């Protein structure tokens, strides 16, 4: 059995008095007018209470908390280095994350992190459906927050619909005005918090309000204020349906064994209004009360089946459970379930859940492998690193006594926060003498690599007359604890010269 996303059962959704979901009303409207453009039908999700709603509140507070607090966490680093735990320092070209600091040339760790994120998303989606969309996506979190604010000023679904239809009055003005003011304030707070990730937070806070912050700070803040206000306040489900690629991609991760927010039509159908005096024989548990539809922030009817608009936020589960309690039927008419289980039950078989399938195994293995690689790379990252850049023009210089000199720029990266004294020697060139121009001469040279910086050391290597090219020479840079190698070559032009 294959899963078809967007298996809308149109006949089931259509009622005599027209469709009830916002998406259905849009379809109907476009159908009637035959317009090239589809107007947005406002959605007024009703507040629900329950298990999943509670989890969503907790996650919302947690994630917003992390977002706002993180830049203010201090982390002591020596000297003039920034004391901010998490900082993307564009000016200093460093990324600080608590005890880890990454250099621009180590951007592959960020790539690794993104690959881990993608694979984790694949695995979670294959197992539990669109958890990301329903709980963790910033669009969902901020929209949830905005709806909370909307509800605070305008009341719940019915009050909001009434207010929208009502003529302009002082009451409507202050409610709408208040809502937009608080929305804008939250949007500004969002953009305002973002910029602290890129510059020392307490300093920037003072700079920002005294007009001395870099222009980028103001622009970033303004942009994020605008996008937050527009996306979470006005666009909402339009962002998910039209702007986000993920709803269209995730169909490739889902199969009939993925847990998704599912209307168990095997139990619900045939649906219909139910009177208290009636029994439950010969009919489904769905009393067609529309509680799931009015709770939906995406404006869809979950009973139409899996749809690309559905973000799996599980609010319809809470809404339905409340109704089931009231009519005295078991909960979970709408629940996290799999297409396979629903199909099995409707044929009178026991549902089978298969969390371990080839795709979850592959996703899991890939995730473990990439994570191990990134962790290994981070753990074995040398504190000292050396690269030798050989002069190419000229490739070698013949000196008055016939000996040959090669010039190198040795780049010594010191990733620690302490200055490191290093001893530089060369292997693979017999009888070579090393010299730092204007400085030391000998077999071993000494230099100090400043903390958290790359020190470029010019080194001249003079080889005895008459020797051939040495293709496998290498500099050994010995720090306090470790020795690192910089491979290079030593050219003499022996073959070329007469």
């Amino acid at each position, binding site marked *: 059995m294959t899963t078809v996303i*967007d298996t*809308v059962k*149109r006949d089931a959704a259509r009622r005599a008095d027209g469709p009830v979901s916002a998406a259905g009303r849009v*379809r109907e409207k*476009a*159908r009637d007018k*035959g*317009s*090239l*453009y*589809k*107007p*947005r039908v406002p959605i007024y999700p009703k507040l629900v209470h329950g298990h999943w709603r509670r989890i969503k509140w907790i996650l919302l507070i947690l994630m917003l908390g992390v977002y706002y607090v993180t830049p203010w966490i201090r982390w002591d680093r020596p000297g003039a280095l920034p004391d901010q735990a998490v900082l993307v320092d564009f000016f200093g070209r460093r990324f600080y994350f608590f005890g880890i600091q990454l250099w621009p040339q180590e951007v592959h760790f960020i790539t690794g992190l993104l690959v881990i994120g993608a694979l984790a998303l694949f695995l979670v989606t294959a197992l539990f459906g669109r958890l990301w969309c329903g709980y963790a996506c910033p669009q969902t979190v901020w929209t949830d927050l905005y709806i909370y604010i909307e509800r605070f000023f305008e009341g719940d679904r019915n009050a909001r619909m009434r207010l929208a239809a009502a003529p302009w009055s002082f009451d409507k003005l202050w409610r709408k005005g208040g809502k937009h003011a608080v929305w804008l304030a939250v949007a500004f707070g969002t953009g305002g918090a973002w910029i602290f990730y890129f510059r020392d937070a307490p300093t920037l806070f003072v700079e920002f309000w005294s007009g001395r912050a870099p222009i980028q700070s103001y622009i970033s803040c303004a942009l994020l204020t605008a996008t937050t206000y527009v996306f979470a306040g006005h*666009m909402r489900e*339009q962002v998910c*349906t*039209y702007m986000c690629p993920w709803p269209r991609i995730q169909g490739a991760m889902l199969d009939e064994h993925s847990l998704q927010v599912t209307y168990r039509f095997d139990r619900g159908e045939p649906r219909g209004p139910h009177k208290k005096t009636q029994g439950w024989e010969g009919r489904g548990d769905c009393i067609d009360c529309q509680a799931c539809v009015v709770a939906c922030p995406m404006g869809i009817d979950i009973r139409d089946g899996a749809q690309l608009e559905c973000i799996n936020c599980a609010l319809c589960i809470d809404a339905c459970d409340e109704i089931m309690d009231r009519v005295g039927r078991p909960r979970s008419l709408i629940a996290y379930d799999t297409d396979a289980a629903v199909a099995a039950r409707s044929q009178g078989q026991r549902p089978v859940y298969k969390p371990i399938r080839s795709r979850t195994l592959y996703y899991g293995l890939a995730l473990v492998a990439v994570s191990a690689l990134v962790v290994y790379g981070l753990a074995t990252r040398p504190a000292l690193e050396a690269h030798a850049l050989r*002069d*190419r*023009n*000229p490739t070698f*210089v*013949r*000196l*008055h*006594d*016939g000996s040959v*000199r090669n*010039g190198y720029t040795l780049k010594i990266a010191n990733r620690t926060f302490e200055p490191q004294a290093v001893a530089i020697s060369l292997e693979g060139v017999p009888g070579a003498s090393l*010299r730092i*121009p*204007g400085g030391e001469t000998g077999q071993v040279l000494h230099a100090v690599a400043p903390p958290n910086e790359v020190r470029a050391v010019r080194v*001249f290597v003079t080889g005895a*007359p008459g020797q051939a090219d040495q293709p496998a020479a290498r500099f050994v840079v010995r720090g306090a604890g470790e020795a690192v190698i910089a491979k290079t070559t030593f050219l003499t032009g022996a073959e070329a010269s*007469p």
Partner: protein
Amino acid sequence: MSERERDDHSGTETTGHEWDGIKELDTPLPRWWLWVWYGSMVWAAVYWVLMPAWPGITGYTKGLLGHSDRAQVARELDGLADLRRAGEGRLKTASLQQIEADPELQAYAMQVGQSVFGDNCATCHGAGGAGAKGYPSLRDDVWLWGGKLDAIAHTIRVGVRSGHAGALGEAVMPAFGRDQMLTGAQVADLTEYVMALSGRRADAAAVARARQTYADQCAACHGAGGGGDAARGVPDLTDAEWLYGSTRTDIHDQIWNGRNGVMPSWEVRFSPETIKALAVYVHANAGGEPEPVVSAPAPAAPAGEGADARAAGR
């Protein structure tokens, strides 16, 4: 207009076109896409008013903001000149040795030196200063006119056989063969003698024949032992460095034709600061003959200028 076909599954109208059994849906766009389009039209109109936009016959619409890319480039070049002026000021007051001892100032001088070298000196001396046949290498440890900072700066200033009043290169190599000062046999013998001087295989009989000729004709400048005369820029014939080539043919050719290199005097073209920068660049690139240690110069301008100099150098 006839009723358009409707897709059963999605309930959306089709375009009426069919390809191999696949029909295209005519899904309506969300209306806000239209608003975005209107928005970009408004933006374009605002842009036309504010910024230079429309071409005309004799000019173009200037825009209310008065923006001009050309003026901006000029402003940025002025800014660069300001930055450089700070560095130049310090180059002017510091001695060559002081420049070399101050890493910041040296870095600035090296940047200036590199660009000036590439534009002016590389034609003969090569982009990396490696030299070529007839043009001395500036990377090795052989210096005809002295390899210390002051000597290098002096050479750049006055040049070699340049026509400058104080030019170097008073001593010239005669064309012994071409001008018939020596016979062909004598030049051939001398070639063997010079080969022997630098410790290479040579015809012993020819070396013996040439001994007197060398003492008469060559020793006055190149010295009895062939060691040259650093003070007058006379090359050492005993080392491995050969300005006009090291082979027997090259050496014979040089005795016969007696070429004398010319280097222009750069005093007329470069400011004293540029010559200083160039000298520091050449000196550092070759590993330089060691200089006495001096302390870094006192900053000649307000603090923070070092950073400016670095910025200018980039």
